[in-house]
């Protein structure tokens, strides 16, 4: 996701340079300019939340721990996979070696990976605002 402060700063610019100048009536025009001023203060109050990254890291740790116990996957798992980029690579490798692994192992590992993907999505949905439950 785009960092919150970046978006706020762009909204401030848009309010000042696009929206407010296009408003003819004095009251809504002053409201638009004031919204820009208030948002600048809000930008200083905002901190990116770190609980999401923590949750993601926990989910990835649990995934790698579980997968490392699968003997068929031994050489496939590397320390580099403890990141979202690493998980992408692991998923690609799993699909490319599907035949060698056999359908049963593939399905089992894919199921466990999808469980981790669910946890990663749920973490991101805390911000995107569509989380259920």
């Amino acid at each position: 996701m785009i960092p919150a402060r970046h978006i706020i700063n762009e909204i401030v610019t848009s309010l000042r340079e696009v929206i407010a100048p296009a408003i003819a009536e004095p009251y809504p025009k002053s409201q638009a300019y004031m919204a820009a001023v208030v948002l600048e203060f809000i930008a200083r109050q905002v901190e990116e939340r770190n609980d999401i990254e923590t949750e993601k890291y926990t989910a990835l740790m649990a995934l790698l721990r579980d997968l490392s116990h699968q003997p068929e996957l031994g050489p496939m798992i590397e320390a580099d996979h403890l990141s979202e980029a690493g998980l992408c690579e692991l998923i690609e490798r799993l699909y490319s070696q599907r035949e060698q692994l056999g359908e049963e192992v593939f399905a089992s590992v894919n199921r466990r990976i999808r469980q981790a993907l669910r946890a990663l999505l749920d973490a991101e949905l805390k911000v995107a605002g569509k989380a259920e439950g």
Partner: protein
Amino acid sequence: MPRVRDLALSDFVHSAGGWSHEIYLFYANWNEDGHARRQGFCLRKDPGAGLLRERSNLREQFLVIKALEATPVPSPKAYWYEEDPTLLGGPFFVMEKVEGEVPNPWSRAGKQFYADAARRGKLPRSFVEALASLHNLDWRTTGLDFLGVPGIGKGFVLREIAKWESLIYQSIRKPEPMLTELLMWLKANAPEAMRLAFVHGAYRTGNLIVKDDAIAAVIDWELQVIGDPMYDVAYVLSDLNREGSPLLSCIVERDFFLDYYQQLTGIAIDLEVCRYYDLLYAMRSTAFWLSASGLFAEGRNKDLRLARTTYSVPVVLNMAAKALGF
């Protein structure tokens, strides 16, 4: 226009719609052979940093609209295409301004408009008929094969996946494991197209001009391909296009759509294949939102609608995960 005198442009409006191109509506007023004339036009201009990036092809759009003029597909007339960016700051083309309205299906007022029209019954029929007119088109005779004809079997699907995957890799700013899983699943489960048709690629309310409860024109010719007609059918069936409405695309009842489409085209709808395409659309939507939010984050496009799409990525991927059963 050699016989035109006293040409003047008026009622100039910069439309708020469109993600890829700037859209301007205006009227031209002139005298011709002693008679006063007035006609509405629509100008589409490539801003250079739109949703599809360099995949946006205004010339192709112009040629498609031109080719459709002689067909039963309701579409605007295409007048001029200009490649030279020095005139308006980018390539552009001018087409007929089709009279009518394009209610936004995501707005409360738009949903109400379509719900009311659905009750009257004429617009849902017209919606299906316009789609059928696309799929019944002889695209070779019409000269639309310049769009590229995919190979038999999985050629169409794999080409679509490759197209949107390249946009993803061009735009992506951080790894998205769920998207990787979705891409790998799509490649591993690609269906074979049973037939090829001229496919709009985004057939839904919001991309259709409505007048007198009928489709006056199909617009937004940006994603058209020669491909599997189920690709359009799946888009109509998709939940992506009817948030909060029980009607497909906010306008047509599911059973009526399925029956009437098959009756008009003679094409049997394969719901399993449509479910696959719905997931492909989730991947394509993710590609769009990654591209849009990337353009904003890079400072190449200041449109705040693009910033909003950064929050759409996990939402669409969540829909895909649910469709895949997790």
